[in-house]
């Protein structure tokens, strides 16, 4: 049996600011993995660069801390190389929605069976405070002393548009719900986004825990996450009330399922010692 303790790396000092929403995300992820009985050596987390990107140092599963914005191609390739692994990609809102947005959209439409967790703090944390694509218009930062001039992106609507087959929003102030969302996302067969509202207590003084607590509510049981237009309608809701939960869910063949060459044996397990190319050579003769 896997326990939470198996996922710990107590030795390593955690460097997130006290009170940062990232702690909850890490806890929820550990709990979800444990509850799903994923063995540590069969899980891989791929991180970007950002405060969020430090996460793989503090969870005892395979980890790959890649480049800023490039989590998804790395994670996709790991999954295709060994689709028996549980593959999780995670990174910041800058990482995923600014520099990395192209990969987000294309990984979604590919429906590669990985879970993508975004630590959406509406700010660049690690670089000490610049606007991110989810910062509200008018946000004042070091880079935008006169207020940003851009409308924020809507990650939920973007995911739906791009073909993600599981689209959810969580809140780092609600460990229980977040854990459940991660469980569902990891269990989902296909590309799953969990966009997490993650207060940055140091650089985002607007979207605080308090601010979110006053606004978030859970999509209720009556909500039908298979209706795309309805999902769009919910996705557009942002302001006094902010819905959380699973916005959209649909079944579609995953990328791996379209590859007969790995239906029996994962790529990494196939032998390469003595590939026979005689037949091919003949073609050139």
């Amino acid at each position, binding site marked *: 049996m896997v326990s939470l303790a198996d996922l710990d790396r107590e030795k390593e000092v955690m460097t997130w600011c006290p009170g940062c929403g990232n702690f909850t995300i890490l806890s929820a992820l550990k709990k979800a993995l444990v509850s799903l009985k994923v063995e540590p050596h069969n899980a891989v987390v791929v991180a970007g660069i950002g405060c969020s990107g430090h996460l793989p140092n503090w969870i005892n599963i395979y980890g790959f801390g890649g480049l800023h914005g*490039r989590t998804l191609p790395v994670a996709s390739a*790991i999954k295709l190389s060994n689709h028996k692994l549980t593959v999780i990609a995670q990174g910041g809102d800058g990482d995923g929605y600014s520099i990395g947005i192209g990969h987000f959209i294309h990984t979604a439409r590919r429906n590669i069976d990985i879970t993508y967790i975004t630590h959406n703090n509406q700010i660049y944390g690690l670089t000490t405070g610049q606007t991110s694509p989810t910062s509200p218009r008018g946000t004042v930062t070091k880079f935008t002393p006169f207020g940003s001039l851009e409308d924020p992106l809507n990650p939920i609507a973007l995911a739906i548009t791009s073909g993600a087959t599981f689209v959810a929003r969580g809140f780092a102030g609600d460990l229980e719900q977040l854990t459940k969302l991660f469980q569902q996302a990891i269990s989902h067969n296909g590309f799953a986004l969990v966009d997490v509202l993650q207060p940055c207590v140091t650089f985002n003084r607007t979207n605080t825990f308090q601010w979110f607590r006053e606004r978030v509510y859970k999509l209720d049981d009556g909500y039908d996450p298979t209706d795309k237009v309805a999902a769009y309608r919910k996705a557009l809701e942002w302001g006094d009330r902010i819905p959380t939960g699973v916005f959209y869910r649909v079944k579609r063949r995953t990328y791996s399922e379209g590859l007969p060459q790995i239906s029996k044996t994962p*790529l990494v397990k196939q032998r390469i010692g003595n590939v026979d190319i005689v037949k091919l050579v003949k073609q050139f003769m």
Partner: protein
Amino acid sequence: MITNKLSWKIGGEAGFGIMTTGYIFSKACVRAGLNTFDFTEFPSLIRGGHNTYQVRVEDREVHSPVKSVDILVALNRQTIELHEQELTPGGAIIYDSSLELERKIRPDVKVFAVPFLDLAKKAGGERLMVNNVALGVSFALVDFDLKTLLKVIEETFKDKGKKVTELNKAAAKEGYDYMRQLKPEFGHRLRKAKTMNRMLISGNEAVALGALKAGCKFIAAYPMTPASGIFQFLAGYEREYGIIAKQTEDEIAAMNMVIGAGFAGVRSMTCTSGGGFSLMVEAVGLAGITETPAVIVEVQRPGPSTGMPTQTGQEDLRFILSSSQGEFPRVVIAPGDVDECFHETINAFNLAERYQIPVFILSDKHLGESRTTTKVFDTRKVRIDRGAVLSDAQLRRMKQFNRYEDTKTGVSPRSIPGQRHGIYTATSNEHGESGIITEESEDRVRMVDKRMRKMKFIEREMPKPHVYGSPHPEITLVCWGSTKGAAMEALTWLLRDHVKVNLLHLVYLNPFPSDQVKAALDDGQKILLIEGNATGQLGGLIRENTGIEIGHRLLKYDGRPIYPEEIYDKVKEVLRHG
């Protein structure tokens, strides 16, 4: 009468099958036991442009095209305008008699105006069959073996059904008969020869075949001329050979995927050209610091930027050598011919995994897309060496597994995700032996030293540069990569002229084989540097590593390959004046 020594060229409007036609001509020659070198030129346009396919045929091995043409088949006017001057005196021009020529053709060549379309129609075909008529006409002119031609035509079109195949054959036969009946007098002929076990293959195909043989299981790439052929070949065998060939959204994704697959324990590669590689540069450093094996094939074309997408050049050597911020070990291999393409690709995969580094194959359009005749690749000595991967048992026995253990060779045995006792975190940040981020001075220095140490060990086992020709040269030719072909040809010609000349050809450019290069050049002889770029990049590298400054240079950067004639002439000039 010259036997089995011919340079044949066909030219016409893009989009009308010139490429296939040239290929058939060449393949039929190879089937008949001859050796060929094919060379194509086409602009980066779909239609409206002008394409040519040139086949050099001999009964001995040929390493490069020549500038001169013995038979020019012109399906459009442009072919005559652009290429008439390339004809050897006594050569032949075969053109479509329906073309309205604006001026006389050179008096010193034989002219055959052939009613291509009429002949095609007579054979029951249409405009598209004209090319086959041209093939038949050409074969008749050199009195060559129609049967072999028809056989190759049959194989080529068999997927299109029996009817199409027969029409194509009939068209070729019609052209053949037409020309025979003219009883042309011509100074060249081709005859069957007995050479066996020959393939007609391009550099791109050879690299792809090498990758397959090396156990590459994953290729991620974004389409880019002239590298696409590699991906295309492997994509065709995805199912049969259990490969995943992933077209990505861009080159950044491709390179990051290659790293993901490498991290997960799968031999993986990408292929691209300079512009695409520019986008991979950041991830190359990621492979460097995470010590992830990766094979990157860069098929060069002339730059900067989009430059000339369908032409050739050797301008990216220094770029590849220093690409990405920071310092880390890498190997750069520039094969000189299709045989080296095949074997060095296999080496690349072995080196990448054994040293856990990015390894580059630096090719170019000329090498990548020109088909040439070569002996069937000898796979008997091929070994697959996956380097230090720890077994489950080994991992279990370890007190602590340190992914980046500081070892004598700099190589740290690794685990593969999924192994129970091999859990670690790789990171693009500097880290300690365990893999966890650190910014301590000592960790940093230890890791830099550990990584860079690999270079010493690679250098020791690296194949030495080849030296061909005279043991005591008065002049040494120096070149790298695909220029080998033209240089080998020129070498042969010069040796035949009793010039004391040799050729130093570099395949491994990093680590740089300083001692061997120095030894080869330190003999007081004249030295001629030959490169497909404007700045003499290898020349700079040689001076940087050996102190030797090369005085004579043949640098070509017009997008065309270097021809043996150019080298030959330059050598004569240097020996005369310089």
